[in-house]
């Protein structure tokens, strides 16, 4: 039986593989989708094909026997029903796994840039759809009916799956997002443990919703026979209904526990207040007391200006938390989003006491610059009009200065070929052309009156001359240091960073120093790679302090170095710290060093590394 099933699935898989290779090739060769490389057509096609394959493999469990009028013969074979089910599912699962691994290989061999569905979302949908289709495969003799039912069940599953955390989070007052916004987010984004609910909790909740389906299938399949499928269906749903209620309750409980006891993020303010945040609360630890408030902020989108902690409540506005009095106030309310723009406010730019960011305006080529005075909380909006503002990309402010007695802002569209614009407080917009055309999409930073453009060709450094940017130096890609600019984004304070003298980064496995005055690159030693690519071991504390950390998983140590000129000075070695341990965190912030080993959190003051003790912490 297994041999027959394997042969059948192998033949079907072969034809599927041929179709998956041929269909994009036909689209590519006939130029149905012009100006796209083959891989750009192949990867999304393959993703769609995979979902179809998961559905087909699931619902076709008995379609071959039904098509050949062989059901009675099949059920008269000397196998128990569960063994029969196992024999039929095993080759299908192998095929599902095989094509998934093929996709993973393609994904990591350059396919990730062309995906239509994020890897996690695809993986989740792929296996869930296969499982659902399998569980429903005995409910009808009609292949099309089964496909429709399975797809409908997937939609219902998806909605219930998101309804549970959404209801809990709405109940706790954590999110203002609508249910549909959360479920559509799921389809668009890479899901990591740092997302709005942790990955293991979501998987567990999904399992609680799926297990009843599997159990109902297993139990009812024990009595599966040749009688009309609606008899089987009645038994299946009779078993499923109570299990599903239990499953939903378990999923809800899991999500609630997950949110309540789930991932904690920590942040250390400049005045050494330790902030602990989950999705249900925020705790502010002073050395001798702790305050708790029912609010949540995401540590990577906030900044502090003691005693205030600012954070964007996405979809709501900008909130200011007084860490001394534990009072929050909304200093900016987000307006309704015009239909032609999906973003509502861009990343902020703080210059002295003014917080600036953009807000979409009514006209498609219009934009509003929002200025908030942090002292008075006065909000000023200045409208600007320019063709560059058409489209959905939010511009970023690179610099702010006072020129000719007027305030101006230098803005840039990330990953575009558009040159920067200068916006004046009187509503006037200056076009700042490149003297030599920049053809590649670039990202940009602006320091010491220089524009640093990074793109696939490398880094181009430009200076403004007579209203145009002129290249003063080009560094080819292979000689361009990595991490040397974008790491500052996290430690925002451009007013200070504008005067920066140097920066550090890496070229291959070497650490380099970039001199902002001479624009020269200097090799200063080995760069030890941390396996987890998301951890950057270079830390910048404005205005001019650089730290470098070297983690060693085997020795369970982390060494902290200070970078001064071309010197790498070892300051301290922290023992018993495994960078690869789950929920480990090592951050060098302006308030000091924040170190998390699992549930244990410690804070060290800089530069003397004196541990700061917090009462009631942990």
């Amino acid at each position, binding site marked *: *039986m297994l*041999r*027959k099933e394997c042969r059948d699935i192998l033949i079907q898989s072969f034809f599927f593989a041929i179709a998956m290779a041929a269909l994009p090739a036909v689209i590519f060769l006939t130029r149905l989708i012009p100006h796209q490389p083959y891989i750009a057509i192949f990867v999304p096609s393959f993703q769609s094909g995979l979902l179809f394959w998961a559905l087909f493999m699931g619902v076709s469990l008995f379609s*071959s*026997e039904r*098509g*050949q*009028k*062989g*059901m*009675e*013969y*099949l*059920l*008269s*074979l*000397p*196998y128990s*029903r569960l063994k029969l089910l196992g024999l039929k599912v095993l080759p299908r699962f192998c095929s599902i796994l095989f094509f998934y691994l093929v996709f993973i290989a393609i994904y990591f061999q350059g396919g990730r840039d062309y995906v239509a569905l994020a890897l996690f979302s695809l993986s989740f949908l792929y296996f869930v759809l296969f499982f659902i289709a399998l569980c429903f495969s005995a409910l009808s003799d009609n292949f099309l009916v089964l496909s429709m039912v399975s797809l409908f069940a997937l939609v219902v599953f998806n909605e219930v799956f998101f309804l549970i955390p959404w209801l809990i989070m709405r109940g706790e007052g954590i999110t203002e997002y609508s249910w549909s916004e959360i479920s559509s987010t799921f389809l668009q984004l890479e899901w990591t443990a740092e997302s709005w609910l942790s990955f293991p909790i979501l998987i567990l909740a999904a399992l609680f919703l799926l297990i009843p389906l599997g159990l109902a299938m297993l139990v009812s399949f*024990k*009595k*599966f*026979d*040749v*009688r*009309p499928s*609606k*008899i089987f269906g009645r038994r299946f749903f009779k078993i499923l209904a109570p299990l599903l209620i239990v499953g939903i309750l378990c999923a809800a409980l899991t999500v609630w526990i997950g949110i309540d006891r789930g991932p904690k993020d920590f942040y250390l303010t400049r005045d050494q207040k330790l902030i602990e945040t989950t999705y249900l609360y925020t705790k502010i630890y002073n050395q001798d007391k702790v305050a708790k408030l029912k609010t949540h902020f995401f540590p990577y989108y906030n900044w502090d200006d003691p005693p205030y902690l600012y954070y964007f409540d996405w979809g709501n506005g900008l909130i200011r938390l007084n860490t001394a009095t534990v009072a929050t106030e909304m200093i900016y309310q987000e307006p309704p989003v015009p239909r032609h723009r999906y973003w509502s406010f861009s990343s902020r730019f703080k210059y002295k006491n003014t917080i600036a960011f953009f807000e979409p305006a009514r006209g498609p080529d219009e934009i509003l610059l929002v200025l908030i005075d942090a002292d008075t909380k006065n909000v000023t909006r200045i409208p600007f009009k320019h063709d560059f503002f058409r489209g959905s990309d939010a511009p970023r402010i690179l610099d702010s200065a006072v020129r000719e007695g007027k305030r101006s802002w230098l803005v840039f569209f990330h990953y575009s070929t558009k040159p920067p614009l200068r916006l004046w407080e009187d509503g006037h917009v200056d076009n700042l052309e490149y003297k030599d055309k920049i053809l590649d999409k670039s990202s940009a930073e602006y320091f010491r009156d220089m524009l640093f453009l990074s793109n696939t060709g490398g880094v181009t450094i430009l200076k403004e001359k007579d209203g145009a940017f002129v290249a003063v130096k080009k560094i080819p890609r292979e000689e361009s240091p990595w991490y040397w600019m974008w790491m500052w984004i996290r430690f925002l304070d451009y007013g200070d960073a504008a005067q920066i003298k140097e920066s550090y980064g890496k070229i291959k496995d070497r650490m380099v120093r970039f001199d902002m005055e001479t624009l020269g690159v200097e090799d200063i030693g080995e760069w030890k790679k941390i396996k987890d690519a998301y951890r950057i071991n270079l830390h910048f504390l404005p205005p001019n302090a650089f730290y470098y950390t070297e983690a060693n998983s085997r020795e369970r140590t982390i060494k902290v170095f200070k970078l001064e000129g071309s010197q790498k000075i070892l300051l301290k070695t922290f023992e018993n710290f495994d960078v690869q341990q789950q929920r480990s965190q090592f951050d060098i912030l302006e308030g000091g060093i924040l170190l998390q080993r699992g549930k244990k959190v410690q804070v060290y003051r800089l530069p003397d590394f004196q541990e700061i003790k917090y009462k009631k912490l942990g």
Partner: protein
Amino acid sequence: MNQNVLEVHHLRVRFGKKVALDDVNIQFRKGESVVIAGSNGAGKSTLLRCLAGVIHPDKGQVVYASDLPREKIAFISDGLSLFENMTLKQGLDFHRRTFRIQDPDESFFEQLKFGKNQRIKNLSVGERTLYHLSMLLAQKPAVLLIDEIIHAVDPYLREKFLETVIEAIDKYGTTMITINHTFSEIQNIPERVLLMEGGRFILDEKSEQLKTKIKKVALDTEIPSEIPYVFKKESALGKDYFVYPFQEDFRRKYAYDFQSLELGDIVKALIGGEYAKKRMS
């Protein structure tokens, strides 16, 4: 189980609201050949499918003898269900592997002049019946369950088919349970006749006993109330009464010509009687 290869306890099967088997209890002994008769919808095929494991009863159970492995139960449905996209060779190989047939008896298969590479779906109904039967006989079955299929085979092959089945029953001590409406060719096979109606057994007799217990008498008048009958057949020529249970005293008391019947006619009369009861009710 005491020589019983199969025992059926309180079997109940429903098709939605319709009860197909209603608290059925029966035993089948090793080596006996049984024919199950009954009107359409009486539950015969459902019972056979329960015995073959194709239908799981809603209540009750089918108990197999401890020395009877599932591989020794052979079943042909009236739909001649097989994986018809396979070639004859593939089908045969598959059957052998699945039923773990170590030493297949292919004598019957060899008599068939089929090309082994043709697909099962291209066989005629008669050919397919013989092919299917040959596969089952190759597994030397301990229990052979045959739904109403013999009518599809032409007279020559039918005779061959029956000879082979009889030979196999003798050779392997097979218990054969068959459903049949056309008794003319098989009346010498069954040792036991079961009659089903409304999902229950209404008669369970040895063939020979049944022949002595049921007689036909043709009369112009109504039959005396003392003589019980199961079926009355009226025609222009007169009335045929099928007397059951027949007693020899009836011959002495009444000067009627009580005629013996073939098994096929007996079964037909019993089924006819059930239809008549239904009409009356």
